[in-house]
């Protein structure tokens, strides 16, 4: 039951689909493979944590990887059931499905591999692999705009990850300069902490943070995110937003775990700067946007900003940050899938045209409402608690100006999102539609995500709590 099974199962399934074994029932294969991986992941995580090192030390399962395995795989399973349901109800989608399935399975395999990888460059390669496998998925048949969005996504991803590779090279040179034998093994690097830091090291670390910031949708180079999330099919957008975002985040966590102790000032300073700038930009754009998927995209940039600030501040914020990351992943999954369902019915993504949701699509209306409320950080959900802890750390570390900016930005986002979304839910329905009543099973994945969100908000099960503590400590560099 070693972690390698998590990688092999999706790979084998994708090979099977690629070789044409289950071409028609590709969606079923997708659901089956993801189900098996999820159960494997849960079994793996709940089992005794063996520190097995396989493939010449390239695989290492620690708290962070266990936490994210438990988060990423269920979300992928939820999305795949959504895809399976969509394919079953609308036959037109069948022809491109097999390509999507094997690419998605490779995507899942590379993500799981990334979570358990122990070598920084291996992390880089796998992250690059996930980006490459997702790019073709973004392209919708016969749609020029989505192809353009895919190109742009690929362009930014290669530039961002190029910077990361550059950063790793500099870090390597930094270690050489300091007389250590340059190594990229995460566990050996963890032991060598605090690494001596010189000009090379600082340059490398800054480049890595900038590159990963681009991948997460943070400040300087983020403009690929709204267009990609807007043009990509909702299921793929959910994959991007919930799964790939967390993969990039894990790489960022690894880097922070290693290098925070050696140069805390640089890490905090850059993350805070990038976080705040991206929050400002996303708030401004949310106020102006009229497109539901772009709204969610800007909201996820906002969340990335909050995560960057939380990571930058450190201290007691790290626990809150993890809570926020977890609930954020589930929120985005719910919102993208709901947006998908709404767009499938209304055929448009203009927020002014869609209205009267609570009457016409009751399930989607309720999910959109609950998702937005969770997005804005209201109590019963995990994001409220996470935000609160980040705020308390901000105040605790004496950064009052950042705290004030943080609060005003969050309130402005709240006002702007509420102003656009609530009329969609409760507004008068523009013209009469008679759509089939939404059945419960179709809403099952989103319902489970919702339940997890509420649990995260009120009563965090002790097992998860211990895991979160461990990850928080590791992020603190202890």
């Amino acid at each position: 039951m070693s972690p390698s099974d998590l990688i092999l199962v999706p790979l084998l399934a994708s090979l099977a689909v690629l070789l044409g074994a289950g071409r028609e029932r590709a969606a079923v294969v997708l659901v089956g493979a993801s189900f098996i991986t999820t159960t494997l992941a849960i079994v793996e995580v709940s089992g005794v944590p063996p520190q097995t090192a396989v493939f010449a030390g390239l695989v290492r399962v620690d708290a962070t990887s266990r936490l994210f395995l438990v988060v990423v795989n269920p979300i992928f399973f939820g999305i795949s059931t959504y895809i399976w349901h969509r394919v079953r109800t609308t036959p037109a989608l069948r022809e491109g499905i097999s390509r999507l399935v094997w690419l998605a399975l490779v995507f899942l395999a590379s993500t799981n591999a990334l979570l358990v990888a122990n070598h920084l460059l291996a992390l880089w390669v796998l992250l690059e692999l996930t980006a490459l496998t997702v790019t073709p998925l973004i392209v919708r048949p016969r749609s020029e705009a989505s192809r353009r969005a895919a190109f742009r996504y690929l362009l930014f991803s290669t530039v961002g990850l190029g910077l990361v590779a550059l950063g790793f090279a500099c870090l390597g040179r930094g270690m050489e300069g300091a007389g250590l034998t340059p190594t990229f093994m995460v566990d050996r690097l963890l032991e060598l902490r605090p690494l001596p830091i010189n000009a090379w090291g600082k340059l490398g670390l800054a480049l890595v943070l900038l590159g990963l910031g681009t991948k997460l949708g943070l400040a300087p180079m983020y403009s690929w995110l709204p267009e990609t999330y807007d043009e990509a099919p909702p299921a793929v957008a959910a994959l991007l937003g919930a799964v790939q975002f967390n993969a990039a985040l894990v790489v960022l966590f690894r880097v922070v775990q290693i290098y925070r102790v050696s140069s805390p000032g640089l890490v905090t300073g850059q993350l805070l700067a990038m976080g705040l700038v991206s929050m400002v930009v996303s708030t401004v754009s949310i106020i102006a946007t009229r497109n539901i998927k772009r709204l969610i995209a800007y909201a996820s940039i906002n969340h990335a900003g909050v995560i960057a600030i939380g990571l930058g501040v450190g201290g007691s914020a790290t626990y809150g940050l993890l809570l926020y990351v977890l609930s954020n992943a589930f929120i985005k999954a719910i919102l993208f899938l709901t947006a998908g369902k709404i767009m499938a019915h209304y055929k448009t993504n203009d927020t002014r045209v869609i209205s009267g949701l609570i009457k016409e699509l009751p399930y989607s209306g309720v999910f959109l409402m609950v998702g937005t409320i969770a997005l804005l950080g209201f109590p019963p959900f995990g994001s409220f608690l996470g935000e609160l802890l980040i705020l308390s750390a901000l105040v605790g570390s004496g950064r009052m100006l950042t705290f004030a900016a943080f609060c005003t930005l969050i309130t402005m986002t709240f006002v702007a999102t509420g102003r656009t979304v609530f009329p969609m839910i409760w507004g008068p329905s523009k013209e009469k539609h008679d759509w089939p009543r939404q059945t419960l099973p179709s809403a099952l994945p989103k319902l489970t995500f919702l339940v997890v969100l509420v649990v995260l908000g009120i009563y965090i099960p002790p097992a998860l709590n211990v895991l979160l503590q461990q990850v928080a400590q590791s992020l603190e560099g202890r």
Partner: protein
Amino acid sequence: MGLLGVMVVPLFVATWRGSLFGLSCQGLLIAWAAYRLNPDVHVIGTWLNLADLVLVRGIGAPLLLYRLMRSRNHTARHDIIPPNLLSWTVALGLVLAAFNLSSVLVPIDGDQRALTSVAAAAVLLAFLVLASQSTPFGQVVGALRLENGIALFELGGEHDHQSLVTQVGQLVIVVATIGLYLWLLEGFSERGNFPPEPTQDEPTL
């Protein structure tokens, strides 16, 4: 210094054929520099590296791009960076900054410092190209120049610690990226603005 020349010159080229030619020169030159730096041929790693530099970056990418552009009978005129005084001065400034930076990074003078400065200049110039291109083809050229800059950067410093797996992985990634770029570029319609987007009538996932 030859290397520097190769990095900077293609900037002033006005035709896309010229820029592709510049790209392949870059690839080959970096391969020559890599061979010169550590010539021991027995290690497979160096073979892989050389193969990547020569085959993929030097010949493969430019050729495929050339074939694509010819099939599109694209107008010859294509500027890497806008031919006005401002962008040239900015380019020059960036090169100077790169030299300054490398003087701090590598205190002792010599071959290593020259290599680092050229690599830094290459990366900054690649970003300048990206910042001034709005057509897909131009952006691909910019991205490839950035890849070359990074490859040059990795040559610096005496290192041979990378395990084989990651090197293979990097090679696969570079090849896949270039392939994807080409696949996407083929899909784009001709010059001119894009057909008005049909309102989402296509049932998407």
